[in-house]
């Protein structure tokens, strides 16, 4: 569990190493301008020193604006090509932002996080 204090309080994320990569679950309902910088730093810190893909589970996120989208892209760039950033469990409002901006084209997007992906083959 990795928590960071922000202007809004806490960017709450948890991490789990899975066979598919490092699963980072975002437990915030909103990734917006108020927490974009803190979100980026929290995910970067959680992935620091580990190898392989990073899967960002956004299943609890019900609002993402272009600031939040920019933060997700920034995380992808910080991780670099050796550590691809995947997304999982986009809620409809979040999926809409990726679709409208065509940024869904640059991420591998899973319907479910890795443990559930294994269960369903």
């Amino acid at each position, binding site marked *: 569990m990795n928590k960071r204090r922000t202007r809004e309080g806490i960017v709450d994320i948890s991490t789990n190493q899975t066979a598919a990569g490092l699963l980072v679950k975002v437990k915030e309902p909103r990734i917006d301008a108020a927490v974009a910088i803190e979100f980026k730093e929290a995910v970067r810190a959680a992935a620091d020193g580990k190898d392989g893909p990073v899967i960002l589970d956004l299943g609890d996120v019900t609002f993402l*604006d272009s600031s939040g989208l920019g933060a997700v892209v*920034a995380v992808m*760039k910080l991780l670099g090509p050796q550590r691809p950033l995947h997304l999982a469990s986009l809620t409809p409002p979040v999926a809409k932002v990726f679709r409208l901006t065509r940024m869904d084209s640059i991420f591998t997007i899973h319907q479910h996080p890795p443990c559930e992906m294994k269960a369903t083959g």
Partner: protein
Amino acid sequence: MGLPASHAMTAAPPTDEPPWRWHSETPKRIRRRFPAGDTETRSALLAVCDGLRRAGICEDDLSSTELILAEVLNNIVEHAYADSVGIVDLCIELRHEGLSCLVRDYGSAMPNGNPPCPPLPRINPPHEVPEGGFGWHIIRSLTTQLAYRQDEGCNALSFVVPLTGYD
């Protein structure tokens, strides 16, 4: 854009009635006045969405409205009040054509006196992956009747969010 067939074909509502309904106790207009800022934007959006949800706006329309307003309000914080602090006035009305929105600030005017109309940022991975520049594309994609006027220190941006349904 017209209403979906499911609404257009609803049997004979009185012609003056809008194609969605709102609860009689819910006002048809939502007004908020707040200081511009990231946390204030968040609070205002939560309050507005709560009101729209109670008015019966469907979740898909609600999420579009929240996203549009977020982009507009973020722009005000970042640009209109880049070097100052100030107030934002938000007014949303349920009308026949959709949610009619008026957002006013008292900061710097938009460059060239018009709301920007930038193309979607170029996406060409791995070298060209944009982190920003999406805001106006999102606003223009999801609204109609976008208009801006600047008058005696007040910037007024108005637009309509077309409604596709209701809960």
